[in-house]
């Protein structure tokens, strides 16, 4: 059969509702069997080991403190993200100046830099003698909770800005104008009208920042020092292999997964009911706050926060990368000498796993996105699926990894590379489904109806109408899957001895800082260049994705 006759066969098969439901059913089965159930079952299988941990008060108190630290950091950072990110998004969308478009691109940079690289970059900036500390005596910020907060702020801030820029651009400005014509000064109009209308996006950006913070492992490992949050504790326990570590692992993973899911469900249920205070107005004070000088001050503050706390620390790793070019490290790297042989292998592994995860998730994620967006399996079940697909987003990746490795241990035939791919599939699955479900939901159903009434079969309509109109979101979703997979560290550490690029970089940093011993020495130029190469690749991906996603007619 030729290509076109295969397509014809599938097109005509799609007219049968049994065929359509078989497709939906397989996509749901894949989701439950591969993405959702294994991490849960992994914990259930080791449930009995928890008894031992519960009888060890010192381990329990250490675990409780770590869990508390995880949530404290995530909630604090997400609140600061929203407070600092909203004015920046406002400045980008409303500033009315051409160079602000450049700022819009710069905001994405920390978002796509693999987090392990970001961690090292921040460490250099805040802690090393070459960084900002050179202005002071000794190191300005030592590894520990403060550096963890600075790090989490740097990588979750772009998420908030990105979401809020989109929301402000989509916002119908007439509401704000109506408030102004009714006598409200700009601050009052924004506070009582614009922000309440943007509330769903504010909540979404908070949730995403929270999820990023709670699940991050690789970069946190680099800057944590003696500080322990949930993922760091899991990693420390695994590395040390202390007595009863398995029970503690299960305990911490279980609590992190349950509380994260609970917080997510609570936000989802209570978010829409959350009322913002709009009735009370303070005309004199708010008029003063509407003053141009105040808004200039706010803009200046936003820029300082962005450059000083986010952009410069994130890109600081470029400094040793420049030295690396000059002192011969680049030649060593290109020749694959010493530790660099492993680097290129890890890079190939990272990008291969990323590509495989992207292809598989695109294939299995598309029917799920349609199913959620068009409520194909009943309103209630579709909404439930909509909530469930987010779970891998909010579960700490190392906890997910631990749980998955426990589950797949039972399948002796599973090769390590297979396990690695499965973990990456789980973690990246929501990005594609979320992005496409949102795009299809926004797409006017009448386009599809017009296609069907013109004689198109369901698959034909999907191929020729739905997909072309949502291809930018598909592309954006695929890019997110790929970059997230390439930068994934925590779960990878938990499931396999295979070294992806971020895992290798974490190891290099640990060798450099004498935390881990190695026969092959590592220099700061090596780490700098290793990170620099990842940034260059990420930057190329960002540029390509911008070219594709910013065209006209996107959904």
């Amino acid at each position, binding site marked *: 059969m030729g290509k076109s006759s295969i397509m014809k066969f599938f097109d005509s098969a799609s007219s049968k509702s049994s065929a359509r439901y078989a497709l939906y059913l397989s996509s749901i089965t894949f989701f439950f069997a591969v993405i959702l159930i294994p991490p849960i079952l992994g914990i259930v299988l080791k449930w009995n080991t928890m008894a031992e941990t519960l009888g060890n008060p010192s381990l329990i108190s250490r675990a409780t403190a770590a869990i508390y630290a995880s949530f404290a950091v995530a909630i604090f950072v997400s609140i600061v993200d929203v407070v600092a990110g909203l004015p920046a998004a406002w400045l980008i969308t409303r500033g009315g100046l051409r160079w602000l478009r450049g700022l819009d691109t710069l905001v994405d940079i920390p978002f796509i830099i693999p987090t392990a690289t970001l961690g090292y970059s921040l460490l250099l900036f805040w802690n090393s003698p070459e960084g900002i500390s050179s202005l002071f005596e000794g190191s300005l910020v030592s590894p520990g909770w403060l550096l963890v907060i600075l790090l989490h702020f740097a990588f979750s801030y772009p998420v908030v800005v990105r979401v809020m820029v989109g929301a402000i651009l989509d916002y119908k400005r007439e509401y704000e104008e109506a408030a102004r*014509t009714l006598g409200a000064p700009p601050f009052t109009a924004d506070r009582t009208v614009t922000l309440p209308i943007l509330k769903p996006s504010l909540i979404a950006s908070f949730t995403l920042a929270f999820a990023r913070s709670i699940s991050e492992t690789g970069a946190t490992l680099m800057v944590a020092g003696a500080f322990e949050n949930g993922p760091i504790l899991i990693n420390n326990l695994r590395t040390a292999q202390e007595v009863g570590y398995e029970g503690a692992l299960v305990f911490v993973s279980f609590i992190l997964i349950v509380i994260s899911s609970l917080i997510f469900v609570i936000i989802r249920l209570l978010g829409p009911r959350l009322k913002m205070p709009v009735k009370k107005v303070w*005309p004199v004070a708010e008029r003063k706050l509407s003053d141009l000088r105040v808004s200039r001050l706010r803009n200046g503050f936003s820029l300082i926060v962005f450059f000083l706390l986010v952009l410069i620390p994130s890109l600081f790793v470029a400094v040793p990368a420049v030295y690396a070019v000059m002192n011969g490290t680049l030649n060593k790297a290109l020749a694959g000498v010493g530790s660099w042989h492993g680097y290129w292998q890890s890079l190939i592994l990272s990008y291969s796993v990323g590509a495989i995860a992207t292809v598989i998730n695109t294939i299995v994620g598309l029917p799920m996105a349609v199913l959620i967006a068009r409520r194909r399996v009943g309103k209630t079940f579709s909404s439930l699926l909509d909530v469930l697909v987010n779970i891998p987003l909010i579960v700490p990746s190392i906890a997910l990894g631990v749980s998955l490795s426990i589950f797949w241990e039972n399948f002796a035939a599973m090769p390590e590379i297979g396990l690695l791919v499965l973990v990456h599939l789980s973690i990246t699955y929501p990005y594609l489904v979320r992005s496409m479900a949102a795009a299809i939901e926004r797409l006017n159903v009448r386009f599809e109806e017009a296609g069907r009434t013109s004689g198109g079969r369901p698959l034909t309509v999907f191929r020729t109408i739905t997909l072309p109109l949502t291809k930018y979101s598909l592309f954006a979703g695929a890019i997110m899957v790929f970059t997230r997979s390439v930068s994934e560290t925590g779960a990878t550490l938990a499931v396999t001895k295979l070294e992806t690029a971020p895992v290798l970089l974490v190891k290099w940093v640990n060798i450099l800082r004498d935390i881990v011993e190695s026969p092959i020495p590592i220099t700061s130029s090596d780490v700098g260049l290793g990170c620099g190469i990842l940034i260059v690749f990420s930057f190329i991906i960002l540029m390509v994705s911008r070219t594709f996603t910013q065209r006209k007619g996107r959904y």
Partner: protein
Amino acid sequence: MPEVRLENISKKYGKIIAVDNVSLQIRDKEYFCLLGPSGCGKTTLLRLIAGLVEPDKGEIYIENRLVNSVPPEDRGIGYVFQDYALFPHMNVWENVTYGPRVKALGSEESEKLGREMLEMVRLFERLDAFPSELSGGMMQRVALARALAAGARLLLLDEPLGALDAKIRNELRYELRKFVNDLELTGIHVTHDQAEAMAISDRIAVMRKGKILQVGTPKELYMSPQHVFVAHFIGESNFLEGYVSKITEEESIIELRGGFFVRVSDRTNKEGDKVVIAIRPEVLRVEKGKKRRDNPVFGNVEEFRFEGTNVRCQIRLENGDSVVIVRPALTTDWFNVRSKVTVSFPPEKSFVFPYPKRGLKAELALE
């Protein structure tokens, strides 16, 4: 009392000139319409008056106060948006009392104003409803009540009836006019619907491509249009092209295509000038066969349609031009398609304009 004066106002968006050197005076307590096709700059002009956009050039005065640098919240205006812009997170009561609250009028006065306005628009019983629970007509009335409760003396309405069904639109336009009259406000109403503008305005400014072509009462615009576009846009007109063949003491004689000569009262053009004659469809007279009449032109009936109150007859003249005649259905003769007829019109019931430099079709185009 609010009188609005615009002096040489211009506004560009990139290369597009939205408002082009407009000067205009709107009198106190007047109901004034800005009328024109889509994209003519009428909404931009309204937004300039409201302070929602700033002019590139020119001055705006409200109550003799230069307001160019006054923000919208301090201009003392009420603005009704085309799709109402009712705050979706507030109920009817919170929407209507928003203005008094942000202006710090005190809770008692806010309540009094809100109550009065909601009673006036007959929606007091729906004060707990959210905008999503209201019909289009109700939303329009809430938007009006909200604009008025803010204590505005100058009401700006941007296509306020545009989103409504025809029947409700017709009812609400008179209601709107009555509110503005009763409350002794000045109203500026933007619309592209000439019937709506004619029905409710004291005066109308007809706009096209950022410029005001003519300002006048509905009667003046209909009875003596000063521009060929106005003759086309206000009401309906037939256009016949020709040359001024001769000018006598009382009238001009125009030679139409195909060697027809007609007489018109207008004497403003010179002999040899190319001109356009505009004649309203209800002015043209039509009779069976070839008759000797004032300004007779012969032709064939191409189409004859019954439209309820009127009949509409389209006639292809012997010179190739086409004209439309509208007559009361009950008191006029009915014609068969293809029957030969004589069309005529009184010389004083026609308008003559110099032939537009860029051609008639381009001059009459709505976009």
